[in-house]
């Protein structure tokens, strides 16, 4: 059984997202689709899944062309998709989510709950998943939610599975578990498309690798005959430096001290539970950890956005525990937030307005309550030039810029001031490789200028490469302090799961 995409072309206003793309998957085979953000992978998969329609080209199974005008038709053709952002209703149970759309009912339309639960249990047992059909999805760990998504797809008799960036939110151990599942699926005769931008994983799991760049398929390679460096070059189109170049750190006096911090989350549950750390001038401290272990709340507390329940935060010796974000800003804090579109920028504002978003209230951008837009304009132009932001003008609305350029605007805004303390959360999420290099270099530059830098990232490679000292956060605690130069990814991964060497906590069980 063979799934083929031939000559798929899809145009959006101003850009060709897919340009005559070919892709073939056979049963029992894993094909990795690699490409950086914006290369067109997701567009291709959305076409396959019936969410978009291709302008040109065709899709065939075993030589028979298909029309896939909606997800229902794709599902009927045996194509199942596990999305990067799960398509699960958080407040429904596992069973409800799995049967949604194919509900077993009696004649008057009433749901047959027991039949649904049976189906879930059967499939669950078949693959050794061990999932409780009654569990509410939002209470499940991410790894388990992903398995619910897989069951959803299998229940609809999928012969081909598309996994879209499945490891984005998993620990190294959970990634290993996923690979075991992929093995089982492969052995069961399913064809799998594994979409990723993570080179290591593609090399590990795939039978074939297809590389996309700017809407075209640029290469199809055998994993055993290629390296990460080769793949990166293919993805970007030019030799790429995968290594962050930095001199060893020369840390000086402590700038930031966090003591026994306890912070509540939005649901009034304890998120950060007694975290302490010190950050010196001239060093980069990185926090590794899977998303959802309260790194967000920790960062919010440190930057003044959230009032801690207990504990202290000292900045250059001054107690800033309950100080507002504006006050932290005045004390030379630079904050690159983790979700740039939601918290870092106003998409409807112009570049100029975004550049002064957190400094408009003082000279030279304003005097008293009167804004001086002329000065703001000039500064914006200067920064756009200096940080190589691609935009038609500084009066362009920010929503027209690409993710990487949007992030550069934030970086420009934050780093162009005098800075003693930098907090950067997921600094290169959704950013193209070229911009990633640039942003990493700027961060190191700030460090060398004497700032204390705190990086929080769920991209283990990034945080290992950038940090001088590595902390691992799990379940609201700092569970380890490691030297990134000597520790291995696997060791860090164990700590991220709470079961690293020397920890008292047992390995985290999957929720039954």
């Amino acid at each position: 059984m063979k799934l083929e995409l031939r000559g798929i072309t899809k145009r959006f206003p101003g850009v060709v997202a897919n340009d005559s793309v070919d892709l073939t998957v056979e049963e029992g085979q894993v094909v990795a689709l690699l490409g950086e953000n914006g290369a067109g992978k997701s567009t291709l998969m959305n076409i396959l899944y019936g969410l978009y329609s291709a302008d040109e080209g065709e899709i065939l199974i075993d030589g028979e062309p298909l029309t896939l005008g909606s997800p229902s038709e794709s599902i009927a053709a045996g194509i199942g998709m596990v999305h990067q952002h799960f398509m699960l209703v958080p407040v429904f149970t596992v069973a409800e989510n799995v049967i949604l759309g194919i509900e077993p009912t009696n004649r008057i339309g009433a749901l047959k709950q027991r039949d649904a639960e049976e189906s879930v249990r059967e499939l669950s047992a078949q693959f050794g998943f061990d999932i409780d059909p009654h569990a509410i999805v939002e209470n499940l760990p991410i790894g388990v939610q992903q398995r619910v998504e897989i069951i959803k797809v299998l229940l609809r008799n999928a012969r081909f599975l598309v996994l879209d960036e499945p490891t984005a939110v998993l620990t190294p151990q959970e990634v290993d578990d996923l690979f075991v599942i992929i093995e089982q699926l492969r052995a069961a005769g399913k064809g799998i498309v594994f979409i990723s931008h993570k080179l290591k994983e593609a090399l590990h799991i795939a039978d074939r690798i297809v590389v996309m760049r700017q809407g075209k398929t640029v290469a199809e390679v055998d994993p055993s005959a290629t390296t990460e460096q080769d793949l990166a070059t293919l993805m970007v189109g030019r030799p790429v430096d995968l290594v962050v170049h930095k001199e060893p750190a020369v840390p000086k006096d402590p700038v930031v001290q966090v003591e026994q911090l306890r912070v509540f989350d939005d649901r009034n549950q304890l998120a950060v539970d007694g975290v302490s750390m010190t950050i010196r001038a001239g060093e980069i401290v990185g926090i590794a950890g899977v998303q959802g272990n309260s790194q967000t709340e920790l960062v919010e507390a440190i930057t003044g956005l959230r009032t801690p329940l207990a504990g202290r935060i000292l900045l250059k010796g001054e107690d800033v525990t309950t100080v507002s974000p504006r006050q932290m800003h005045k004390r030379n804090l630079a904050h690159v937030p983790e979700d740039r579109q939601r918290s870092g920028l106003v998409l409807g504002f112009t570049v100029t307005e975004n550049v002064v978003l957190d400094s408009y209230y003082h000279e030279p951008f304003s005097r008293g309550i009167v804004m001086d837009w002329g000065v703001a304009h000039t500064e914006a132009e200067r920064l756009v030039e200096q940080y190589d932001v691609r935009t038609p003008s500084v009066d362009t609305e920010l929503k027209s810029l690409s993710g990487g350029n949007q992030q550069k605007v934030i970086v420009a805004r934050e780093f162009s001031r005098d800075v003693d303390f930098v907090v950067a959360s997921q600094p290169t999420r959704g950013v193209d490789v070229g911009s990633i290099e640039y942003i990493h270099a700027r961060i190191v530059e700030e460090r060398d200028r004497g700032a204390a830098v705190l990086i929080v990232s769920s991209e283990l490679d990034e945080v290992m490469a950038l940090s001088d000292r590595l902390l691992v956060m799990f379940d609201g605690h700092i569970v380890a302090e490691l030297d990134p130069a000597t520790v291995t990814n696997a060791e860090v991964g164990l700590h991220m799961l709470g079961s690293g060497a020397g920890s008292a906590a047992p390995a985290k069980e999957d929720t039954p």
Partner: protein
Amino acid sequence: MTESDVSEPDPTEGNAGGQPASRSKLYQEITGVGGRARDALLVPALAVITALLIGGIIIALSDVDNLRLFRTDPLEAMNETISTVWGAYRSMFVGAFGSINAISETLFAATPLILAGLAVAVGFQAGLFNIGAEGQIIIGGMAALYVGFTFDLPGIVLIPMCLAAAIVGGGFWAGIAGMLRAKTGAHEVITTIMLNFIALYLTQWLLKTTVFQQPGRSDPISKPINEGAQLPYLFGSEYRVTIGFLIAIAAAVLVQALMYRSTIGFEFRAVGANADAARYAGMNIVFLTVAVMFTSGALAGLAGANQIMSLPPYQGSTAFSGGIGFDAIALALLGRSKPYGVVWAGILFGALAAGGREMQGVERIPIDLVEVIQALIIVFIAAPALIRSIYRIKTADTSAVQITTGWSA
């Protein structure tokens, strides 16, 4: 956590965002018109015309006696229909623009509308739905009323005092909703509507207390304000329009400066566009939410003050707000929440009101029709796609107006 754009291609990367301005910035500001003059004016113009057309149909269809006539003498009935509708709109036009008096009436009616429209527009720009202009007008008006009949001072002093009272009163009333929104997340649509009703009943009660009630009367009518508080006429005592109109224009100028040239206005707009980013940038969301509502309420309060201070017999009654608060929503939308747009929209609606009164008096067509026309105008403005599909035209601006983001704060 939240969506990143990892999986979305950016189809608009590198596109030009703005068009070169073909006219001076000041002109653009005043008229809200830029290089796309045709688009900016076409939809609102067509919206108004279409609304009037539908209004005409309603007039025709509601003449029950005439409808009966269709069975027996269709030609006569048709004639009758056309002359009724024509008569209605003709008298409307005459009532709005047909004489100096008509123009005075138009501007007179436009004054409170402009102020209330500014109130709602300020709210919209900051992402807040102020449906409570009605209640704020009442409270502001009552505050001005109280100051007006308590202190017997010359106009130079008394008028600003009354206006200040109105600002504080209206601002306070809206501020309640703002505080509730900021501290508890209670959506201001519900709270402001409830406050409207509360204001109404409060006024009914106040007008019967000895403090407010006119001596010698048993109905809810207040004492008249002292002469010093009466706003002077603009064109002389033959014409009803007062300097209240100038106050409204001045308010529009101030709001424009506030929103686009001040730090506070920048904060208002940022909160409206993305409250999260505003918070991360250090802005105080609680303070700003209350400040926006206060400003909005203050403007509405001024409208209430105008109703008391511009209109003989210069006293308060239970109906002095007269539905202005809801018209204001239409105004803000028509003016695209920009101050000068609101002024033009206010004059238009003032024309409708003045004309409508003439229409009711001469042709005896109930003035509620004007409400219907206004509702239709809102629909067409808020959904430009409707106009486009009716008239099969293409414009560049494809977006419908979006302000709501759900109930949660």
